[in-house]
């Protein structure tokens, strides 16, 4: 009886030990691949965002893995509209896809008529609405 309990404890211990190691390796891998993305080691599909500001067509192209959207002037894509929050949303490239995530903006972000509550995957030709403003997304795949 003791022996069976001991064996069970031992197996459980190894499972937990390697779960811990596995977790560490996985998270480390994520942070390494993140830093590789930042340093341009892994190629990212070029992201082009098109919007209309003061009746003027604005087209911006990004090669980085993170693009911020908002009214603040340090945003990568600035949407000058009162219904847009200072830090409205963020686009990130991870797991081989572009994601859009709403940064708890006042008026929310919409993909067509779907309210974006959680990060969602974005594809070519999608349009995102931020308050009254909107922008269109073009993703150029890697050659």
């Amino acid at each position: 009886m003791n022996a069976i309990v001991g064996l069970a404890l031992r197996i459980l211990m190894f499972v937990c030990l390697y779960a811990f190691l596995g977790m560490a390796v996985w998270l480390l891998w994520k942070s390494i691949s993140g830093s590789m993305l930042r340093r341009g080691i892994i190629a990212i599909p070029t992201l082009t965002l098109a919007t209309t500001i003061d009746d003027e067509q604005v087209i911006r192209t990004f090669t980085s893995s993170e693009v911020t959207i908002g009214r603040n002037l340090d945003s990568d894509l600035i949407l000058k509209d009162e219904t847009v929050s200072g830090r409205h949303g963020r686009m990130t490239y991870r797991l081989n896809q572009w994601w859009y995530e709403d940064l708890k903006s006042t008026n929310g972000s919409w993909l067509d008529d779907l309210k974006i509550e959680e990060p969602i995957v974005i594809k070519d030709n999608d349009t995102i609405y931020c308050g009254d403003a909107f922008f269109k997304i073009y993703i150029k795949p890697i050659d």
Partner: protein
Amino acid sequence: MLLLVCVVVGLFTASLCVAEGTRTHSEDFVYTWHYLIPYFFWLISTFLIQRNIERKLPNRDPWIFPFTAALTGIGMLMIWRLSPDLGLRQSFWYLLGSLLFIALLSVPDLIKILKNYKYVWLFIGLILIALTFVVGVNPTGSGQRLWLQVFDFYIQPSEPLKLLLIIYLAAFFAEQVRPNISWISSIFPTLVVVGFAGLLLIAQRDLGTASIFVSIYILMLVVTTQRRRLLWVIPALAIVAGTIGYFAFDVVQTRVDIWLNPWLDPSGSAWQIAQAQIAIATGGITGTGPGLGSPQFVPVAVSDFIFTAIGEELGLLGTGAVLLSLLFIILRGINIALSSKTTFGRYLAFGISAYLALQTVMIVSGNLGLFPLTGITLPFLSYGGSSLVTNLVAIMLLLKMSTQTSAQEVPETVRSPYKWVAGITSAIFVLIIGWNGYLAFPNQQELIAKAENPRWAVYDRYSPRGDILALAGEKLAENVGESGSYQRRVTAPELSNTIGYAHAGFGQSGIESSQYQILRGYVGVPWQDGWLHDMLYNQPPPGLHIKTNLNLALQQQVDELLGDHAGAVVIMNARTGEIYTMASHPSFDANRLSETWESLLSRSDAPLLNRATQGSYPLGTLATTLVLESAWESNSVMQQPLDSDLIRLDPYCRQAMQIEAEGQNGLRYGCESSSEELLNSVDPTLLLDNLIEFGIFSSPDLAIQTSQPENPPSVEELDHDPLQVMNFKVSPLQMAIAAATITNDGLRPAPRLVNSYQTQDGNWQAIGEERAETVVMAASTARRLREELASSTQSLWYQTGHAFINDDQPLTWYIGGTMPGWTGTPLAIAIAIEANAPELVQTIGGMLLSFSSTN
């Protein structure tokens, strides 16, 4: 994350708690509660540190501390398991270390203080080392005096000195302006400091720490000067220093020799390394289980060899996890160095990582025999307060620096050496894990089977060894006590020479040794049983009983008759080769080995020797029997009767004749004159063939050790000096087989000492395969021989003979057997007594028939 670590260490503790009950196969739940003490110590200290770093360093590297805590916890419990006394000390040290950790954490601008007062720290470190020359002690009472005593605690100043040296080097190099690095102003001062510290350590014979110092220094030079080529200096220097050390220090010489060939002297100077490898092999992949192994067989398992203790009880899975955790901390450290805001921080973080890497690589590869052994600690795991506290402070510095990062990219030229060091370190760790795996799996069985592996004695204590029985079922050797304290008891001590012993201190011999696989339950037990016992208890299953062919009643009768005479008696079944009696005097009592061992070894009459199988006695005049056949074939005619004058001159022969007045048969009573005449008259080719067929030059295949046979001479040699046959050395067993051959109509039976073993379902299974009899001579020749030597009063044939051991000590021989007219078991006997005892041999020989008739 830390919670998961707490669970892992907790499960380890719990496994240790149930281990004792498991080992002894206890029916009830048995817990060994005291393992909870180090666990609670560990929990408290870990919790203290965690709470403080959560508050003060919220942006720290999240991984380093959980790994540190896991390693420390496993180390502490392992130390406690090996020695609760040292485990308690280690628990206090961890508590102390965590308090120092917290205290230093709350010092504002600690990093700046360290940097600005670099010479002060270095000086303190060197002073402490210098102090050991004056008031140094060694906690064990002898050996290198590397410790300072503070009340009841011992501090080894070389441990904090390593960290202080790193701080100094980092601060010094950080001050040098990059483009202007010149060898004179930038390198020379550090060379002096490192050289001085190194010399202090060499003077103390602390060579391991000295080499760590130099290696850290070179690695730091690599990153500060950005010269990758400098990495080659480490192996180059190791070879040069190793060669010089080999001739300058005895210690270095033995260590290198052991490393090059650990199996040259595994029971002497290489004992530790050999035991370490056996321990790793015993652990295998999954380990024996916490508390179920015997890691204490490796000397100093608590400190230098804690890695092998983990290897034995947790297996490759355990050591792999330990090495990966250490590698993880080291790589995170290098990462912190690369993202550090200040140059000092970068060098310091790198220095600490290099220090942890070097310590780990050197001691673990030393443990596994990949590298000459140096006595240093395995970070976080080994017993040693100074080491643990130093390592904890180092981790505190790493964590502190992980919060002072800069997002700025480091140029590739700066990054490159760090990446190289990280890459090489990872490669070495992979190599070590690979070698560990090789020892633990493909090489496992070979290592476990080594004669130096003492684990069988532990298995014997917990899992019963099989009994050894006589043919009628009387116990000759059995177990007494209960699981955890089984002891071997020989119930027929006079048979100790044959049965042998199984003693934890002196090893195994006789049947105990040769039938070990069956007695210990490795052979004859279903494999799944063996596997289950190994998995659950780390023990082989209860061993199987073995039945020998010995007849206890006859044996005791012979023993009584032989009494105090040195000599041997072998009685066997002439047809089947079953050995009924094997007496060798003087004997010993296997139950009293511990008290008598020294005297048994030193006694000149060699009681440990089994004279029946290992005794080599000159053939003497007994040669006659073996020669007669060839004499007949050579058609040489004996002069009959012998010249009575010659007999009168041969006192031994005359004496033998007078006991039974059966006529003056010079051959029967082994008269030298007739033997010599006979030997001179035979054809040497026929004689040699005859001797070979009788088995004089081959050792009988028996369940216990037999003597080395004589090398056969060439025909020319025999022709030149036929009388040398009388000096050929044979064992009584060989002569018993020869007697059996004559009794058995010229067919030589194979001797069989062990009969069968009892399988788990109670059936007896024969041991060994049926071996064919060898034809030595025609049945008619055998009959003629028997008739020539037949007794006129009993249904026996026999011959006596004599020889001299060491020129003056007389030896009396007797061989004989039953006649075909005898209705009982056909028996053969050989007697050798180291005295002139013609009467006694004939008495013992006459007993044959009494046995045959009662049986």
